[in-house]
């Protein structure tokens, strides 16, 4: 039989290779599970990157060792002809079977591969939860602010109304609330009272021209960290809060209306009041939901 493949019994794969593959797959599964745990605990994102990278590296080790050491590497070349001869077909079948027999614990390895694949896929899908609540969007309307809660500065000291001069920009937080909450961060600014053009129902929200706004842009959720305030107002833009990400620009004088940029709704305003000690306190709830817009939000 000219040109027939020379079939050799497959060489038995070394035992260490199987162990390496097995351990690589199981470790990949463990690391991916650790990724999910770290994500759930809300720890540092650098750990997330490290763990996901390690999971992929371990999968890669498993795949490389499988390919190099477990699967027979013999290459056969022949001129193409049909396998119509029964004996040839049988030979090939036997060869394929023997190749698999080279792996002594193929079921165990397959299961390990399954476990690793599922966990890593899980690790890839779990962060979708960060896209926001899918079922209960009402929780986005629950707020850190309620009437009477004090505004504190970066160092945790209560903000005093008299310390905020006209033209000042003061980052503020809700007292006693986790600062990582989106709605805990405020930007407090002070304009001349005469320059305010607040809607009628918000006239009492800005004692002495002190205005408090959510620091989170309603477009993509960046921190609105820029405040432009002209000290001489001829031929210059009027005071505005500006988001550094996409330059959404909000007019504090009118209660946070969008005057430029991609934001679709006004910056939520917090009504403030000055108590008998001169400290700033929330006088109610924010004028709208805090944070980037989602499908539950149309207008302020």
């Amino acid at each position, binding site marked *: 039989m000219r040109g027939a493949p020379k079939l050799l019994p497959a060489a038995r794969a070394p035992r260490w290779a199987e162990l390496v593959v097995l351990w690589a797959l199981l470790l990949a599964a463990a690391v991916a599970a650790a990724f999910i745990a770290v994500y759930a605990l809300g720890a540092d994102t650098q750990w997330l990157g490290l763990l996901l990278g390690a999971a992929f590296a371990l999968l890669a080790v498993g795949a490389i060792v499988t390919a190099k050491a477990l699967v027979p590497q013999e290459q056969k070349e022949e001129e193409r002809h049909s396998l119509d001869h029964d004996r040839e077909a049988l030979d090939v079948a036997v060869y394929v079977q023997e190749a698999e027999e080279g792996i002594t614990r193929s079921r165990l390895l397959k299961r390990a591969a399954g476990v690793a694949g599922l966990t890593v896929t899980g690790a890839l899908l779990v962060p979708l939860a960060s896209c926001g609540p899918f079922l209960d969007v009402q929780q986005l309307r629950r707020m850190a602010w309620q009437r009477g809660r004090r505004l504190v500065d*970066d160092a945790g000291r209560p903000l005093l109304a008299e310390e905020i001069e006209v033209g000042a920009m003061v980052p503020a937080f809700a007292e006693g609330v986790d600062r990582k909450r989106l709605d805990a961060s405020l930007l407090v600014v002070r304009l001349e009272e005469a320059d305010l053009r607040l809607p009628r129902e918000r006239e009492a929200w800005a004692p002495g021209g002190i205005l408090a706004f959510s620091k989170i842009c309603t477009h993509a959720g960046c921190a609105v960290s820029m405040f432009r305030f002209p000290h001489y107002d*001829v031929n210059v833009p009027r005071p505005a809060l500006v988001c550094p990400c996409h330059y959404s620009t909000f007019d504090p004088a009118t209660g946070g209306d969008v005057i430029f940029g991609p934001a679709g709704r006004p910056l939520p305003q917090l009504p403030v009041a000055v108590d008998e000690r001169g400290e700033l306190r929330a006088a109610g709830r924010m004028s709208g939901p805090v944070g980037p817009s989602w499908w539950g939000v149309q207008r302020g």
Partner: protein
Amino acid sequence: MRRLALLALLLVLPATAAAEPNGRQLFVAGCASCHGFDARGIPEKGPDLHGAGAAAADFYLRTGRMPLDVATGEQPLRAEPAYPPEEIRALVEYLASLGGPPIPEVRPERGNVSDGQHAFATYCAGCHQIMGEGGVVTGAIPPPLKDSTPTELAEAVRVGPYLMPAFGERQIDQHTLDSIALYVERVVKSPPDRGGWGIGHIGPIPEGMVAWLLAGGALLAVARIIGRRMER
């Protein structure tokens, strides 16, 4: 006779001015067309300077932002100072006599870099970027801070030039001001660049471009090498 006296006066005046620059005269000659002969301002042209004080005058004159170059638009931009130092001193003295805050004192050596970075991130970085490269706000260009002396920096913090908000003593106290100045001296003016290359220090955009263009190119080259080997 009177004519002669006038002529003599005209000849003598410039001579005395050269010896000891007179702030009020310089003001009338160089600033009054917008700010008025009495520095009370001219509607639609320039603001009243009573109460602006030495801090604002020194900042605007020393950084060449005033006299305003109308060709570059409304925002005063940094330029070569229009006056020599002794004339600036005289002008600042004159404007200080109209009332207002003095030139703020700042001593970076008394600050703390870590406090400075924290305060810089809180108050300054929104517009000027964390590496002080400057940026854009709608309607104005926050300038880079690399050329600023500590005193100019302190003046800007207290005065709030153009669209910048002013930060008072109660918001940024003396220690914080010293620390911000130290941060600018140590970090903004000589960035650490641990990776060896700052990529313009303007944050994620050039970093992303380097990742895409350079790292992407390198990956392509590696893929090509692997492909070549497989051909053999």
